[in-house]
């Protein structure tokens, strides 16, 4: 019997950035947007629509959950999101995938010879 080796589908850029933003700490929606902007040095900006589309998808996939209320500061009614163990695994497998692409690309670019050499 063949062993099925399932690789998770690649994440979209928005989903990857959201998971990266939540990797260190629990954040609310606006915090995630600011963290993404900081990580990408302003190069990648997402609006609330894209953010919550992707957050909903990630919550459905159990990559992200609502952080419990006890961990928030008092009087803060905003929802905080937390990366789950499954989400962490998905993020690390995505990073591995990107790393292998980068390695392959670097190898090919180094090996490339000029046509009329």
């Amino acid at each position, binding site marked *: 019997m063949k062993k099925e080796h399932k690789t998770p589908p690649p994440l979209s850029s928005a989903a990857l950035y959201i998971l990266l933003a939540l990797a260190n700490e629990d954040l*609310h*929606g*606006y915090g995630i*947007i600011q963290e993404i902007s900081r990580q990408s040095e302003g190069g990648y*900006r*997402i*609006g*609330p*629509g*894209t*953010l*919550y*589309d992707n*957050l*909903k998808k990630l919550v459905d996939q159990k990559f992200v959950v609502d952080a419990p209320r006890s961990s928030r500061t008092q009087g803060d009614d*905003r*929802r905080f999101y937390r990366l789950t163990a499954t989400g962490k695994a998905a993020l690390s497998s995505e990073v591995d995938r990107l790393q292998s692409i980068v390695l392959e690309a670097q190898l090919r670019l180094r090996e490339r010879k000029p046509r009329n050499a």
Partner: protein
Amino acid sequence: MRSFLRLAYRAILQLHPYAFRAEFSEEMLWIFDQQLRDKKSRDSTSAHLLFDGVRSLVTQHAKPRIQHTETVNRYYCEIDSSLPAFRFTQAGMIVLSCLCCLFSIGLFVSMMIPKLTVLDAARQKDWLLTRVKIFSSLPTPAPQRSTANLRAGVNR
């Protein structure tokens, strides 16, 4: 201007599916306000945010409606009571086509039965109406030959 943008964004949020709206619309509106307040990027942000809202709206409605409805002992089932945007569009199209039909029928009747719709010159000026003369542009039929002329032609 800012209140108008907020109103437009709220309208976009209202068109989202109910489940999504109930869960995220308040937070989305709050982030929208925060981003508009941010002086650094106010100029470019408003258009970007509105476009982002519309894109989210399309994404949410275009998704296949595979919902994990919660059932309790097979008696309770969550019903999605949202009014999808395509139904509004369909209703709008039906109303628009009905209006077009009424207009074309009115135009047809006014041309075919001129006596019914003759307006005096003063009213025409008041309502900025002009008479449409379609029949004048049609070619006039050739005069029919009399039977005597036809017979004369055959004899020749």
